[in-house]
């Protein structure tokens, strides 16, 4: 009896085990995947868009040393390639794209999305929805707006990095200009200000005589969005002003001519933080930009002795004025002309004056250009670098 019982149990187990071996539905081998490093969307016809993806070619990665030996040298092209397809939406285009790729499209490593200017002017909401909804797409991916075709930016073969997507990612991370992720973008569009700013990229012209693909896209300014539509763009100088208002200044160099002498003094920004402080006085809405920056001198092309504390005071003052000038120029464009609240003044007022905010919420568009911006900046020049007097100037010529 006991053996029968044991045998029947054994049979049950033996029958049961193969059920576990039928295979995994979601088994995906890495060599069955087409890893997309970047995606670009262009407008094709009035209805159709073109989706271009930059696909990573795994076999040539890590072979950089060998390539160098083989004389591949300067260029490391061919590590990625670009495929594109047309469709009504991203997903529609993706289906068609999949037909052209032997491996399954995988979005998990996409770190860069590029949207062309023409498409951005019509609105990006539809496309943004896919990026937020698809389970594979990472919400930390960076978004850029391209002056020309997004496809073109993907096709470029950068001399230094492995692909143009890596170039853009590193440029965004360096925070010299805007750094905007999918999360930031969608949060700011639905936020109080209903506006957003995205880094604006253009193609760096290739050197004469070189392959004209052998160059990089780089960030040259910012695209300004109201709701999900692009309303204009500002250049890199104005963008630096915008960074001050957004408290995103990370690295900057300011060069200017001191009043006391001819030539230039350049200062590198070591630390900077800023804060928007809203006020409402008798129905007049204003914002104070309070900022502190600490700088080092990195070049002195004048004959001033910058070890003399009396010059520093004047330098600090001029540094302050320089920043104020940048910010004002930016406000002139973005606040007065485009009427886009990319600095989140709305949020600042909402946080400090919730009641007043509720009243003007619906007509913020009319209020916003009227908001006056005051400055409360402090600039400190901390160190002269590792040399004292101006180099190459004899002691008699140095002015105290």
């Amino acid at each position: 009896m006991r053996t029968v019982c044991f045998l029947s149990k054994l049979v049950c187990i033996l029958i049961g085990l193969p059920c576990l071996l039928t295979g995994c539905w979601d088994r995906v081998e890495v060599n069955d995947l087409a890893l997309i490093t970047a995606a670009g969307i262009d407008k094709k016809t009035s209805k159709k868009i073109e989706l271009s993806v930059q696909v990573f070619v795994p076999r040539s990665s890590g072979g950089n040393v060998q390539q160098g030996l083989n004389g591949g040298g300067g260029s490391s092209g061919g590590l990625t390639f670009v495929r594109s397809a047309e469709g009504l939406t991203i997903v529609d285009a993706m289906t068609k794209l999949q037909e052209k790729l032997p491996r399954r499209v995988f979005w998990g490593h996409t770190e860069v999305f590029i949207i062309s200017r023409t498409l951005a002017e019509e609105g990006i909401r539809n496309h943004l929805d896919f990026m937020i909804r698809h389970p594979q797409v990472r919400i930390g991916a960076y978004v850029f707006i391209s002056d020309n075709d997004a496809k073109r930016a993907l096709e470029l073969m950068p001399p230094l990095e492995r692909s143009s997507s890596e170039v853009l990612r590193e440029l965004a991370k360096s925070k010299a200009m805007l750094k905007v992720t999918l999360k930031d973008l969608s949060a700011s569009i639905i936020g109080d200000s209903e506006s957003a700013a995205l880094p604006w990229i253009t193609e760096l012209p290739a050197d004469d005589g070189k392959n004209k693909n052998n160059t990089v896209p780089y960030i040259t300014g910012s695209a300004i969005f109201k709701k999900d539509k692009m309303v204009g763009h500002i250049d890199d100088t104005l963008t630096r002003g915008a960074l001050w208002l957004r408290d995103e200044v990370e690295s900057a160099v300011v060069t200017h001519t001191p009043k006391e002498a001819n030539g230039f003094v350049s200062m590198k920004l070591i630390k900077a933080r800023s804060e928007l402080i809203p006020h409402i006085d008798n129905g007049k809405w204003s914002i104070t930009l309070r900022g502190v920056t600490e700088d080092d001198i990195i070049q002195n092309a004048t004959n001033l002795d910058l070890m003399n504390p009396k010059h520093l005071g004047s330098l600090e003052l001029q540094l302050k004025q320089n920043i104020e000038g940048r910010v004002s120029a930016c406000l002139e464009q973005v606040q007065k002309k485009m009427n886009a609240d990319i600095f989140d003044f709305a949020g600042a007022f909402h946080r400090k004056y919730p009641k007043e905010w509720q009243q003007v919420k619906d007509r913020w568009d009319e209020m916003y250009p009227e908001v006056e911006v005051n400055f409360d900046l402090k600039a400190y020049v901390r160190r002269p670098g590792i040399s004292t007097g101006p180099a190459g100037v004899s002691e008699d010529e140095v002015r105290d």
Partner: protein
Amino acid sequence: MIDKGKISAIQMAYIMYPTILATAILLVPAITAKTAGRDLWLSPVWASITGFITVFIATRLNNYYPDMSLIEFSEHIVGRWIGKLLGFFYLLFFLHITAIIIREYGEFIVGSFLRNTPISVVMATMVLVCAFNVRGGVEVVGRTAQMFVPIVLFLFICIVILLIPDLHPKNMLPILEHGLKPSLMGSLVPTGWFSEFILITFLLPCMTDRNKGTKWGMIAVATVMLTIVITNLASYFLFGALTSTLVYPVMVAARYISIADFFEHLEAFVMAIWVGGTFVKISMFYYAIVAGTAQWLKLSDFRPLTLPIGFILVMISIWTAPNLQELVHFLSSVSPFYFLSFQTVIPALLLLLIMVKSRSRQSRGT
């Protein structure tokens, strides 16, 4: 008593922590954010009041009937027939709620990771593992919880700490912009979760140090509340108004982590939290159904019931909702009232009844 196993009060806390948290941590931030907006971190604080009350009710009832669970003492309190009927409804209720939990688990795994795997397979395998756990009795459930909770907690803390560079605390201002109402409304859904603490009535009879039951029950409620507050804050600090538009904010948050270019793609952490936590959660509910059914039918052993009930659970979890939208809609609209009435209101009425009864008996005695 049907289960000879013994657990300690601390083990009870270990079981209850993931029993409340496992599903709450993934779904609740988004559901709360919809109604509470930027005050979402206050909602779990209000909701935890229900948790404290429920633990109080459960331990008080246990004082009157130290060796009985909810199913057994309800018969004693309201009489045999009504008690049996009430017990039957409780069993059905627990079947339903467990099926919902299993479905939530399946939906998350299939929706975010195993997109092509049939959901029935994902759910059935989980139920099978839980069945082994439950068959072992309360002692095994307690020990597996003790093993999993530290891991779950560690991973959770890791995620929060790694997120710190990306958090913007100013997102939570202004506090209480529209008064208390939004945060109170938002607390409705977590209230349903906190009322699940009534399950300790199934654990209290097996406890060796029952006098500490209240204390550890309260500690469990407090830690769960704290964890949900931290989760909600972290989600809102990171996503702001976007929180309410995401289905699983914590998972997306974990994906957002990127430290030094190589420490990224951490959603496996969330998966581990989710699988470990729901394993304990399903086991606890499953155990309550199995032990409850055995008590209701006055069986001598609950083990033979384990597998058949597991089978029923998988079936119900498939029937319970046609899609995720329906499931979330149910959770964010009807569920608080449904959960609350079974898990807090009826036990409270039972307690009231027994208190009145014993008092009148006392006065008659003197």
